[in-house]
């Protein structure tokens, strides 16, 4: 048998040293301007060993006073036969030192690293949280975990067979490497505005949930993103797993919905770009349109009468968009939808992205195409909708939405840079310019009036879709949306708000648009 001395030495070294891990500090998460959104903090866990506690009354009194615990319960635990009690976790160093100076016995302390979110309930679902061992479980904490976690260090202690430390031998410290810092495209002030807006929207509309995104339409940087209801990241409600899973879901990315009228932006843009429709196009709305023998109603059942293209967009007349879709035809329309990425994942850096769906091109009938034209019979995620709408108003470029801007290693080097490249020429530049003008009229005179902000040219489109439950229309359940962008001359912000099941009023213009206006008001 051939044995190599070197490999034996390595194995022997492994048994001679006990290595105690030194938890590496988890990287920070910062907003675009360097505001700290998540960091790590060293806290202490206080334990007690009843067997080595000689003055149980005093120890119980000191611990209960300093840690605001129940004296009787603590004393009972100290009198029990338990070998070790975890008295309290997350204790500050000053409190620990205070306790240890007051003559307690059998009390000892261990260090632990805790994730801290300075703003608590802020960017909650997107940020995500870690487990007690500081491993990311949801959101960005999970998506970028490998960057954030760093490399643990070790203390190697020379010891005998049973782990007794050898007094005359060295102890080696292997330094851990701090995790990399993730800088987001999120801007704290816009996020603040967004969180306030969704909060007040939820309050006023009594909606089941309200979500919103603000994005830079030119490069796909997500500037703010949030959903209510949510929770405080510093106090994750871990007891009820099912509820926690629901609350931490990034529905803007993971859930599809029927976009309704907001989708008309895509239809209108395709119509204009095809050349089949011009701004001089006029259509007649008698309250319904018969396609393939089926009567499809406009939302305004008494009809809009004869309307110009611009007026039709402003009034969100279904008949206009049915006509546009039918004019361009199935092939052109489906090709256009594919270019807009309607049913294609955006590639956003959030786990669990879903992809939209619609009727397959080979089985689509004119009646279906007409419905798709005004945003029915098509389902997409809000982020897909926002990306498509961005392409409509940004000159025809398809962006890749992203939240992480770059990642900086602990030594200062940039180890990841988000790709902000775009796919150009989805529609013509001129079509996009026209769309911006038309969509401004929606906010100036049409259904989107609620989004007006003085001194800023805002364009947008409202949407109200009925919800389906088990394949049938759910009566009285709506999803109200609004997509807005500003400034119209050269859009820097595009915002989408999704109000799920508002109670009472449900038109997007009433329950959604004002809150986008609220966000824009605080930006400009």
């Amino acid at each position, binding site marked *: 048998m051939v044995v190599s001395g070197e490999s*034996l030495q390595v194995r022997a070294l492994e048994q001679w040293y006990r290595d105690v891990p030194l938890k590496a500090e988890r990287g920070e998460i910062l907003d675009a301007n360097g505001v700290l959104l998540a960091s790590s903090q060293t806290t202490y866990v206080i334990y007690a060993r009843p067997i080595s506690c000689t003055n149980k009354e005093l120890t119980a009194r000191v611990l209960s006073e300093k840690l605001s615990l129940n004296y009787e319960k603590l004393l009972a635990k100290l009198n029990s036969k338990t070998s070790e009690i975890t008295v309290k976790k997350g204790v500050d160093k000053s409190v620990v030192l205070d306790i240890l100076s007051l003559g307690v016995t059998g009390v000892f302390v261990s260090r632990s690293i805790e994730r801290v979110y300075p703003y608590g309930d802020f960017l909650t679902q997107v940020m995500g949280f870690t487990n007690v061992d500081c491993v990311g479980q949801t959101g960005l904490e999970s998506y970028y975990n490998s960057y954030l976690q760093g490399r643990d260090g070790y203390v190697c202690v020379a010891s005998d067979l049973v782990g007794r430390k050898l007094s005359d031998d060295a102890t080696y410290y292997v330094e851990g490497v701090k995790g990399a810092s993730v800088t987001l495209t999120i801007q704290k002030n816009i996020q603040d505005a967004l969180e306030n807006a969704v909060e007040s929207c939820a309050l006023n509309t009594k909606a089941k949930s309200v979500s919103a995104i603000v994005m830079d339409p030119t490069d796909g940087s997500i500037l703010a993103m949030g959903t209510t209801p949510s929770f405080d990241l510093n106090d994750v409600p871990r007891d009820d797993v099912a509820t926690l899973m629901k609350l931490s879901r990034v529905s803007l990315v993971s859930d599809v919905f029927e976009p309704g009228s907001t989708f008309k932006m895509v239809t209108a843009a395709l119509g204009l770009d095809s050349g089949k429709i011009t701004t001089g196009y006029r259509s007649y709305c008698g309250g319904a349109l018969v396609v393939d023998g089926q009567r499809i109603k406009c939302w305004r059942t008494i009809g809009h009468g004869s309307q110009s293209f611009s007026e039709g967009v402003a009034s969100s007349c279904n008949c206009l968009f049915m006509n546009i879709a039918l004019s361009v035809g199935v092939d052109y329309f489906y090709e256009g939808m594919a270019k807009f990425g309607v049913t294609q994942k955006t590639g956003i850096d959030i786990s669990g992205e879903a992809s939209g769906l619609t009727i397959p091109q080979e089985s689509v009938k004119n009646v279906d195409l007409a419905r798709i034209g005004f945003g029915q019979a098509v389902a997409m995620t809000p982020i897909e909708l926002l990306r498509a709408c961005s392409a409509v108003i940004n000159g025809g470029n398809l962006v890749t939405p992203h939240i992480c801007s770059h990642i900086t290693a602990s030594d200062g080097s940039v180890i990841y840079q988000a790709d902000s490249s775009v796919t150009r020429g989805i529609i013509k530049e001129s079509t996009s310019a026209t769309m911006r003008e038309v969509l401004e009229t929606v906010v100036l005179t049409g259904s989107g009036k609620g989004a007006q902000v003085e001194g800023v040219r805002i364009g947008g489109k409202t949407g109200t879709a009925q919800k389906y439950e088990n394949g049938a229309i759910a009566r009285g359940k709506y999803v109200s949306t609004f997509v807005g962008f500003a400034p119209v001359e050269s859009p820097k912000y595009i915002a989408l708000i999704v109000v799920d099941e508002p109670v009472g009023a449900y038109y997007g213009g009433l329950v959604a648009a004002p809150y986008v206006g609220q966000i824009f008001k605080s930006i400009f």
Partner: protein
Amino acid sequence: MHLRRNVILSTLALSLFGIVMIYSASSYSAELHTGDAFFYVKKQALGFIAGCVTMACGYFVKEEWLAKFKWAIYGVSMVLLLVLFIPGVGQSSYGATRWIDLGFITLQSSEIAKFGLVIFLACYLYEHPPTSLKALIVPLVTGLSTCIAVMLEPNMSITLVIGASLMVMLFIGGMKSKHITAAVIAVCIAIPLLIILEPYRVKRLVAFVDPWANPKGEGYQLIQSYYALGSGGLFGVGLFNSRQKYLYLPFAESDFIFSVIGEELGIIGCLVVIAVYLVLIWSGIKIALKAESNRTRMLAAGITAIIAIQTLLNIAVVSGAVPPTGVPLPYISSGGSSLMVFMFASGLLARLSGEKSGVKIPFKREFKLKAQKI
């Protein structure tokens, strides 16, 4: 030829070196378990002082006395072995009953019995050369009964040492080659049988083939020995610097002391130690070769065979050349009674060299001086 001097000096060198290595190998565990880092060192030092006395005794013993009392010597050896089977007398550890606790010292019966048998056989075979089958009966019966008694302790490794020494003596005594061939075949059959009979031996054999198959169980000891030798490399980690002695290596001060030597002094140190053994063994062989009588020859050869075989077996076990079996390294391993017996054997071997010289006189003078004082 300074055969007598070689025997005495190498014996003293190995024994004293043993005390140093025992200190190195055992100080940590001794401190931990007994509170005295010198626990084994003190015992071994006492053994060494007593050993000097036994060595002197061996030296002054006359061959004729041995011949005269050969049956008594054999009888005492067998009695020591057999009393182990009386419950309460034999001391057991690790599943074997090999020791008699005399209070001040723990005696390992087989240590005495193996040399007892050699002395008996040398004297008996001198009077009854084993040239016929009939003449083989007594040597074989006495030799094999010793072997069986040791085997039943159980102690396979010492049985092997005794058996091999028995063969050596019969060979030198003039046993016919056809009988030798038959005996060798018998042994070749017996050993595998003995291994299969005891499940722990089979396990050890498997562990020997691949110690890493069961690193926490049967393979543990050999792996730890490998770690020690592997860490030692060419020059060793330095005297007293062993890491394996921190309880990792079992029996570091006794059966596996050669591992600690390898770890601390490297292969160079091992070779030096082996060289000293070779001086001793070579001197023993030379003494046998130039012996005037066949009795002297057989005595010298038997003693030398035991030293050589046991040393070889121990080093082979430690370095993984043969399956693990517990056998102490002569003169060096911790064990007072073993050291005393081996030093007695060295004294006898020195005596058998037949060299007459000056050492005898100062000894006598000293005795006279002491006598005068008294």
